[in-house]
Structure formats: structure tokens, C-alpha cells
């Protein structure tokens, strides 16, 4: 009995600012994924939509909206909201339905149109909403939280702004030939240093933009994949959608404070560490086995945090891993070969699925111009994704081929 499911098809709509409705992006990604899988829309039994919740914004009905736009086919439907992790939560809905034997073939779609500038909370007077209150009472934007983590790396581990810049330079280089990336241009340290400071120590080019975009995955049982002629498909080995354990002692967006550890000792792992750990635990695969990773580089410094949270190195050693070239294409474990959020900009409910698309292309050896390669010259065999959003949402997907 295996708990694996097959990634039979993946597809994306290029990231950017295209001025269209999120549904149009989602449809393009879905059609690309169906074509990649060789599956007809009419054969899809379950549609899982990743959604976002923003005021005056139509992401509320993501699952059925996509079904209607592709043409009602009677498929069962679900909608998942988990902030930046929405795509992975939708993927998990499809995986569990397949593993339960309730369906063989599912289509998972995440799509977004994101407003320019700082992501802002829902409008109106919302005195019971911490996401509203943090702007009103202390002016704490998303980059402010990223900057707290970045500054702590500097004061604790001796990280420098030059280290952060190297992450951006690396990711800009990785994404140069990615047809789905919005920004395809090399960046120099001087350009980063000359970009305006947003939230000290993070400058504009350290922080990811917001984008429109869409990604879709056709997920099937292994039997179904075999019937379609895919005897060795990319497999989802584990999905993590864990919440924190009490007390969560690291300050998180959009909160004003951490949990108190006065009465209960902190858990063995921080929330960030627990996200990928759940995937390793579920799959029996170790961090040392990982060949390639896509992580949520909301800021350059956050990518360094992820190296440690994924177990690619010990706490405080991420700068060394970066500077040794281990996480650059050609290195031991390339991170963000797609170019990451640095080249894409964030399209919230699509982003976790975009990571799965990229890892799928990497494991198939189809990531033209940005392909990770094993020492033996082959394509990587183990890839992991990681992301984290507001309100205690995080996700990780572990894939193998």
C-alpha cells in the first residue's frame, strides 16, 4: 500500500501584471496542465481551487468558478484558503480524496490578481481583526515582519546585507530563462544597494513584488497514471499543512505578540522547522536526500532562514551554504531554480502550486535553461517545496521521481 499519488500534468500562466480576471489566468494554467497530462477536462472527477480572501475580490468562490469557466462537468469541488499556502492545501484536498479511493483524477488550480504595493488588510473598521489592527495601531506591514527576521540573522549570525543581495543575484540569474517568470533580468549588488530602503535592513530589491499568476496540477492515482502510459511519473510523497504547536514563540504575521511560554515549555521544533519536518517524517526521506528545493523567498533573508528550516544546513550556517555556491544551479542542492518569488512576485493562492510545477519540471529534466543536475549528469530525483502564510499557515510538498 503506497501513499503516493502521481503528478500527471502541470501548467502555469506567466506571472506579471496582465490586467485580466483571475479566472482567465486559472483557465490557461488548467488547460496547460490538462494538455501536459493528456487528460480531457470531461474526465476530471474533482476540482480543488486555491483561493485568496481580499476585500472586493472574487477569490471567494475559486473552486466552482474554475469549473464553470471550463464548462460545468459535474466534478466534485472544494475551495481552500490558507493564505500563501492555499495551493498546497488544495493539493492536499485532492491527494486525500485520491488516496481515500473516492476519485482517480483531480485538477488543482490556484490563480490570483494582486494589487500593486503593500498587501493591505480588508477595508472598513475592523477592531476585532488582528490583520487590520496591526496596520492601524503599529503600522506593521508584511515587510516589517520579514525585516525583523532579517535583522535577527544579522545580529545573531553575522549575516550581512551583502549576503542578502547574493540571494537576489542568484535567483535573478536562475530565473533568467524561465518563460513563466515576470522579472527576467540580472541584478547587481550595486543595483540592490541603490534601491530604496523599505524596512531596514531590507531594500526594495530584497523584497518580492506582488503579481498576477496561475498554476495548475493534474493529480492522479498511480493506477490511473499507468493507464495513461505514465509508468514512472513524478510522485507526491508527502504534503505538510501543519499548524504551529503551542506555544509558538516566534512572532508571526499578523500578530502583535507570540504565545507565552510561561506555563508550557516551547515545542521541540519551531513552527518553521516543523513545516518540512512533517514531510520528511511522512515520506521517510531525509533532508540529505533533497536535490532541489523551491522556497518562499518573500525576502532574500527569508530564503536563508528556509535553508535551515528545511534541514539543508544547521542554524546559523545558511550564509556559508549560499556563499559556497551549494544553493546555486550547479551546486549540491539548488534552491529556487525557477528564480523564486524574486523573479515571479507573489500571486498568493497560485504560489505553492507554482513551486510544485517547477519541481515537477526539474525532476522530469524539462526545466530548460535552469535545470538542476546531479553529479552523475542526471535530473534530480528528490525535490521539496516550502512556504508559509498568514495566520499559522505553512506548507511543504515532497516530490520524487
Amino acid at each position, binding site marked *: 500500500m503506497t501513499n503516493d499519488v502521481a503528478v500527471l500534468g502541470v501548467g502555469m500562466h506567466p506571472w506579471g501584471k496582465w490586467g485580466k480576471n483571475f479566472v482567465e489566468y486559472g483557465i490557461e494554467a488548467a488547460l496547460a496542465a490538462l494538455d501536459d497530462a493528456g487528460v480531457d477536462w470531461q474526465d476530471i472527477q474533482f476540482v480543488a481551487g486555491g483561493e485568496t480572501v481580499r476585500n472586493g475580490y472574487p477569490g471567494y468562490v475559486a473552486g466552482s468558478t474554475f469549473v464553470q469557466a471550463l464548462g460545468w462537468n459535474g466534478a466534485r469541488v472544494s475551495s481552500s484558503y490558507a493564505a500563501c499556502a492555499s495551493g498546497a492545501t488544495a493539493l492536499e484536498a485532492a491527494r486525500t480524496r485520491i488516496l481515500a479511493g473516492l476519485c482517480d483524477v483531480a485538477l488543482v488550480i490556484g490563480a490570483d490578481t494582486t494589487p500593486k504595493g503593500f498587501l493591505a488588510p480588508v477595508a472598513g473598521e475592523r477592531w476585532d481583526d488582528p490583520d487590520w489592527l496591526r496596520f492601524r495601531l503599529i503600522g506593521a506591514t508584511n515587510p516589517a515582519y520579514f525585516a525583523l527576521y532579517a535583522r535577527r540573522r544579522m545580529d545573531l549570525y553575522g549575516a550581512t546585507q551583502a549576503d542578502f543581495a547574493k540571494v537576489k543575484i542568484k535567483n535573478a540569474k536562475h530565473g533568467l530563462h524561465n518563460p513563466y517568470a515576470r522579472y527576467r533580468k540580472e541584478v547587481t549588488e550595486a543595483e540592490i544597494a541603490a534601491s530604496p530602503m523599505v524596512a531596514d535592513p531590507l531594500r526594495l530589491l530584497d523584497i518580492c513584488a506582488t503579481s498576477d499568476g496561475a498554476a495548475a496540477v493534474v493529480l492522479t492515482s498511480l493506477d490511473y497514471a499507468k493507464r495513461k502510459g505514465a509508468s514512472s511519473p513524478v510522485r507526491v510523497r508527502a504534503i505538510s499543512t501543519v499548524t504551529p504547536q503551542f506555544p509558538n514563540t516566534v512572532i508571526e504575521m499578523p500578530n502583535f505578540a507570540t504565545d*507565552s511560554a510561561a506555563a508550557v515549555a516551547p515545542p521541540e521544533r519551531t513552527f518553521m522547522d516543523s513545516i518540512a519536518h512533517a514531510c520528511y517524517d511522512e515520506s521517510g526521506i531525509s533532508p540529505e536526500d533533497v536535490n532541489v528545493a523551491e522556497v518562499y523567498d518573500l525576502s532574500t533573508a527569508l530564503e536563508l532562514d528556509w535553508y535551515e528550516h528545511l534541514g539543508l544546513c544547521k542554524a546559523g550556517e545558511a550564509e556559508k551554504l549560499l556563499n559556497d555556491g551549494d544553493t546555486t544551479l550547479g551546486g549540491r542542492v539548488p534552491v529556487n531554480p525557477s528564480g523564486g518569488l524574486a523573479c515571479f512576485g507573489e500571486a498568493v493562492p497560485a504560489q505553492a502550486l507554482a513551486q510544485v510545477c517547477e519541481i515537477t519540471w526539474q525532476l522530469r529534466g524539462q526545466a530548460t535553461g535552469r535545470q538542476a543536475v546531479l553529479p552523475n549528469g542526471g535530473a534530480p530525483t528528490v525535490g521539496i517545496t516550502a512556504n508559509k502564510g498568514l495566520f499559522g499557515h505553512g506548507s511543504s510538498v515532497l516530490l520524487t521521481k
Partner: protein
Amino acid sequence: MPATQVPAIAGWFTTDDQPHLLGTRCTTCGTVFFPRAEGFCRNPSCRGREFEETALARTGTVWSYTDAQYQPPPPYVAATDPYVPFALAAVELSDEHLVVLGQLADGTTVDDVKVGDTVELVVEPLYEIDGVEHLIYRWKKVSA
């Protein structure tokens, strides 16, 4: 001069000469919550439903810090036009074992603090609406 001053939010902090943050403590397990939690204890192994108000420590150590060089979007209300950047600090309170995020006191920049510095709670004007000054808690560096 504004005629009146009110806390920007009720029940989060006192406004006396030695201001405190106000949290709640679960009477069953002793866990402290800020902002105040009521109704049901968030310690997963506790079924406590009773809370007492508790004043948090006035001083703490800087866990990390940053600033806001761009004016945050609404509902942030800028106190001045043009906008003047402010700094933020996440501050660890040792007795309560929690970290509280707040702005740094007026005039403090990121160059004035580092991780581990001692800061104390102050209350300062955040913005003014219709002649009423709205107050907020902030962290102020304690001079060595």
C-alpha cells in the same frame, strides 16, 4: 493642543506615569495572553475559561527591530504630512516569556538599538482625529 487624549484601543495598556501593557492570565494554567484572551484558554492541554487581567512587565529586551521607510497603507493613519518614518521593535518580556511587537518611541531610529537592548514601555500620541489625540504603547530605549 488637542483637548482630549484617548487610548487608540481600549484595554490594551494603561496611561499612567508608569504605563503597563494589559494582558490576561488563565486562572487554571497560568498562561499569559497579550493582546488579552478571554473565553477559552489557548493552551491545548488546558480547559480553562476564567481569566484575570494582568499587567505585563514594563521592561524587556529587544528580540529584533526594523523601521517603516514608506508610509504603511490604510488603516494606518499618518500623524504628520509629510510622512515621517518610524521604527518598530519586537521585545521579549522575560517573566511572561512572550515577545510583543510595537513601535519604538518618537525620535528613535534603527541606529539607536540592537538585539538584546533593554527597553521600557511608554505611551505616546499615535494620531489625531477631530481634535482627539489617540495614544499607543511604544518601546523606549533605557539609557545605560
